[in-house]
Every structure is written in C-alpha cells, then in structure tokens.
C-alpha cells in the first residue's frame, strides 16, 4: 500500500485552458480519499494524472516517496475502475480479470487463485464464464472492481464508478466498495460528483471547483465548517439555506438582518464576526437547524410562507419563500409532526450556534475554520495543513 502526494500539480491544456491549478493533497497510506465537485471541476483530470493517463503540466506526483510524473501507467502500480466499466467485450469475465496478470506473465495457477479469490469477494463466481454483455450494470461494475483487485496494486483509483447504476444499486455498491476498503486496507482514491457518495465513503474529502481545491477534510468537518459558500452549498442534502443580510450592533447585541428575518448572533461567533471585512454577509443555515416556531417566541425569527411540503415519514422537508412570487427555495427539515399547509405563513427559528456566515463579496467563511485546514494565502483555495 502507498502514500500519494500531489505537490503543486497543474494541468494546462492547449490554448492555456487550466483544468487543475496548484493542487496540493496528501493521501495517506490506506486512506480512502474522495475528490468531489461539479462537472468540469478538474477532479477526473486529477485522477487521470495520478493514473498516468494524462500528462502533468507542472508539479510533482509522488507515490511512496517516488516521483512518478514521467512513469507510464503500467509502472505506477495502480489499478483503475472506470465509469463505463471499460471491460473488454470479447473476453469472458474470467479473462477480463486475468488480462492484467497475463500481460505481466504471472503463472496460470497464481492467476486462477487470484481471480477466484476476487470473484469470491465480489460474489461473481457464477458469472466467470460469461461475456460482459450478458451481465447487468452492477455485475459489470463488480467485474471492473475485480479486475483491479487481482492486480493487488498499491493504489486503487475509481473514476465515478457508480454513475451508470440505478439509485438502489448505487447505494448497495457504495456500501460494498466501503467494505472492500476495510477488507483490503488499500489506499483508494475515488472521484464522484455526488456529494452523498463523498460523505458516506470518504475518510477524507477533497472538494474542487473550477480546477481549484476548495477544501480538504473529513466529511463532518466539511459539513460543519465549510470554508466558503461553495463548499457549504455543495456538501449536504438538502442543501444549506443562504440569506443575504447585514450585520449591525443594537443594545450590545450583534444582529444580522435582511428580508424577512432578524437574528441575534450567538455569543461564540461575536469575535469572528467582529473581524468581518464588510457588514454585508451571507447567512448559511442547514435545513435541520431551522425549526418551526409555532407559538414559541424567540429573538431570532425568519418569516416565510410554505410553498411545498415533502412528507418523508420520519421527517418532512418544508420548502418556503420569503417573497410572494415564490422565487426562492428555503428548506426546513422538520422532525416533529406538524399541522401546516401549503400557502400558510410560518415563523422559523434558527439554531444560532450552528449558523454559518460568509462574506458577501468573496464567499469566504467568516467564522474560524476548525480542524486540519487553513486558508491559503494564494487565491481562495484551501490546502491541507501539515
């Protein structure tokens, strides 16, 4: 197994198109790291550079302390699982899995042992003689994973491997890949655009946007302490609510107010908010931190009318808007049973200690970011602390 280090990695395509800028990530031995971000953010390019399928424009890529920038894929001791499975259609499942070993001239009995072992782990023993076209999407993806396992590589790379599967299968395979990680104890790098996959699978998540790494950290760290508005909005489902507001002092309290709301900030946030570069802020509230007030009185209240109610049984998602034209979708996750209807006005109380604040211009978090991350002096990117 291996440690992978990206040092100032950049990818610049013809015409000076920057796909990845200044990427610095340390992936520890046996760690499961997920690169997540919207389409075109550079996550797949980064993975392909690690695989050797894409040339690195500048920076150093180290695998186990060895510079591998100029090594071809086959000499990097990695295995990759592709989004479209990339199985060889003319070969049986067995031959697909054995191909990489045959190329390396591994003895037949050893190949057989490894293929059978991998097939057992992935429960595909009965399909070994079949051609890929006779398999379902989920089975094909297992074969693709099996092909990686038999190679016994230092690093496993996954490029959106679950994107082509239906929702139910995706959840199932997600669990299986996580189990596989525990079982193989291997270094795994996983790319996805699905933040739920990232949250549920990764030991560490790297959030990317426009070729820049935005934040690196554990799933909960990113959830609780997003470094900017993008990460805050990208991580979490339903997404965080954002309200434009203005800070001001009143009777010794620090208030933030805007259209349809007036909140008294929590004491623990006062110091950080006091250093805000401008009084114009974005208030970020997770749906579970916004509850219906009912008859309860509070000093922090948001007034809105309900536009949609999604009853999920254990909880309800209440969509609301502060404006008459319903142009916004604020969401409250309501756990208790309620008696509200669409079109009704309601008052909501935020859990002020969990509210996040972002600078209205730069989008940066105004509260001190906790955990092993720091604000980068260059651009708005965050990089990992040593």
């Amino acid at each position: 197994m291996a440690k992978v280090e990206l040092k100032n990695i950049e990818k610049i395509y013809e015409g000076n198109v920057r796909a990845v800028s200044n990427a610095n990530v340390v992936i520890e031995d046996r760690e499961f790291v997920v690169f997540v971000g919207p389409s075109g953010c550079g996550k797949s390019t980064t993975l392909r550079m690690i695989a050797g399928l894409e040339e690195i424009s500048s920076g150093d890529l180290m695998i186990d302390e060895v510079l591998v920038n100029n090594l071809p894929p086959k000499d990097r001791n990695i295995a990759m699982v592709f989004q479209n499975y990339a199985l060889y259609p003319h070969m049986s499942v067995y031959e697909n899995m054995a191909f990489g070993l045959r190329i390396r001239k591994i003895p037949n009995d050893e190949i057989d042992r490894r293929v059978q072992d991998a097939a057992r782990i992935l429960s595909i023993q009965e399909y070994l003689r079949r051609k890929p076209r006779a398999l379902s999407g989920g089975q094909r993806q297992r074969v693709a994973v099996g092909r990686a396992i038999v190679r016994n590589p230092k690093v496993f790379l996954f490029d959106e491997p679950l994107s082509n599967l239906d929702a139910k299968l995706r959840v199932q395979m997600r669990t299986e890949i996580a189990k596989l990680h525990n079982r193989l104890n291997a270094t795994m790098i996983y790319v996805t655009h699905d933040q739920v996959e990232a949250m549920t699978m990764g030991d560490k998540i790297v959030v990317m946007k426009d070729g820049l790494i935005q934040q690196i950290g554990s799933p909960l760290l990113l959830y609780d302490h997003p470094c900017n508005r993008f990460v805050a909005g990208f991580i979490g489902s339903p997404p965080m609510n954002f309200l434009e507001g203005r800070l001001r002092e009143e009777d010794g309290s620090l208030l933030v107010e805007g259209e349809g709301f007036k909140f008294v900030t929590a004491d623990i946030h006062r110091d950080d908010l006091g250093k805000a570069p401008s009084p114009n802020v974005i208030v970020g509230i997770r749906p579970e931190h916004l509850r219906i007030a009912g008859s309860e009185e509070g000093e922090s209240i948001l007034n809105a009318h309900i536009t949609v109610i999604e009853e999920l049984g254990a909880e309800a998602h209440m969509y609301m808007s502060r404006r008459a034209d319903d142009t916004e979708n604020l969401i409250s996750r309501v756990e208790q049973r309620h008696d509200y209807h669409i079109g009704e006005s309601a008052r909501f109380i935020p859990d002020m200690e969990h509210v996040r604040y972002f600078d209205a211009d730069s989008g940066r978090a105004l509260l001190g970011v906790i955990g092993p991350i720091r604000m980068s002096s260059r651009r708005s990117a965050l990089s990992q602390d040593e």
Partner: protein
Amino acid sequence: MRMGDWYDRNAFWLLPSGAVIFILMLMIYPLGYTIYNSFTDWSLTHGDKVNFVGFRNYLDIFFRDDRFWGSVGRTIYFTGLAMVVEVILGVLIAVLFDAKDFSGKRVARSIMLMAMMATPVAVAMVWLLIFEPTAGVLNYLFKSSGLEALLGGKQLWITDSSSVIPSLVLIDIWEWTPLIALIVIAGLATLSREPYESAMVDGATPFQIFFRITLPMIAPTIGVAALLRLIDCLKTFDIIYVMTMGGPGYSSETLNIYTYQMSFQYFNFGYASALLVVFLCLVLGISLLVTYLRRGLEL
C-alpha cells in the same frame, strides 16, 4: 371518417405495396425466369423449339464442363487474394488514420474515396495503359528503379497467363481497399477509449493492445467489410471484361465472365441460365457460411 378508418386499418400493407410490386417485378420475376430457363435448351444458334431438358444443363456443368471448374477455381483465386490483401491493408490504413492526428487527414480521407468513385470501365482503360508491357508506366518505373533487372526482364502483367489474375487483383486492391479502410475507420471511431486506457493501466504494450484489444473489438466491423468485398469480388465483371475478356486463353475467365460468354457470345441461354443459378448458389452459400462463422465466433 369511414374512409379514414379503412385507411388506418390497411395502411400497413397499402404503403409498402408499391415497393413490394417493384421488387417482385425486378427481382423475383427475373430470378424465376432464369431458374425456368435453366431447365431448357434455349439457344439462339438454332431455330429449334425450346425443349424442357430437366437437370441436363446442371449435369453437364458439374460432370462434363472443365471450363466451368476452371472458372470456379479462378473466381476463388481472385476473390481470396483480393480479399485477404484488401482486408489487411484496409485495417492497417484505418488504424494509422485513427491513431495519428495529422494535418490534411480529411483531405486524405476524401482522396481515398476517389478511387471508388471512378467508373470501372474508365479505371480499366487507365490500368490498361499502365500495364501495357512495352510502353506502360509500370514497366517504365520498374526499369528505371532497377526492379526489372531484379525480376529477370519485362513483366507481362495482364498479357501473361500466370500474372494476369494477380494483376487484376492489384487493380481491385487499388480501387476497393479504401472502402475497407473507411468502414474500419468508422468502426474504430465508435469504440470507447476506456478499454484502451484500462489496458494501458493493466500494463499492455501498444502491440498487445492492437492484437488483444483493438482487433477483437473491431472484428465484427472487419467481418462486415470483408463480407461486402467477398460478394463483390465473386461477382467482379467489368474490369476483367474490359481488360482481358477472360484471356489470355481462359486464364482470367471467372465464373461471371464464363456465364456472360455462354449467353452473349454463344447465345446458349438455357445453359447460361443454369450457370447463373449455380453462381447464385455459390455466392449465397459462401455468404451464409461467412455469416454463420461470424455468429459462431460471437463477433
């Protein structure tokens, strides 16, 4: 309203009926008429009444006609040689086109089409001049490059019985290799890049990738291209007719040329019809065999 209902109910046979009648008139009727003729002794060389002779024409063809067997052999020789070379060259050209991006790639692809667009008779006339043993371009090039001395004298090309078929095959290759290349280029373009990348990560060399990944994956496309050429090669007529008329002697007389001679030189329509039926069965049989083999190989 009622009329509309009737039309809706019957449109499924009404609409294709024009095409069906057309096919019946232009394909089924001539085929039936040819099969019928093959059982007669219809000939324009005598004024006798046309008699029904049963299988006599077929028995003659199979058991008494050496010229028929000779033409079958030459048809297979021509077809086999042309197909093998065309497929190998076509695939190589396609792979080169697919692998490398070079300026003028589109122009080169269009130029490849030109040979196919030329009319066969014009092609044949030009190649007649090229192959001409004393004043032809090819022998001139052979002489000036020293190849002539190496091969021990002037090449006779289509005027020599041993070199006539390879010479005709050369023209077929020149004209039709681009077709195979274009079909295979199209086939290669539909292949996903991921299996290649996967093979690279697996550690395969370019040579291994070509033989173990690319070739098996485009085998169905190559199969289709080869089948098209197979049928066409078996039927080749125009170039041979214009250039050699089956000569020298019978040395380039393929089955198609022989049938033509039998009908329009000797006006022996009954016998020629039987030859045509045999020819049809041969083409159909080989095509079905190739298709079956392709399926058997699960390509």
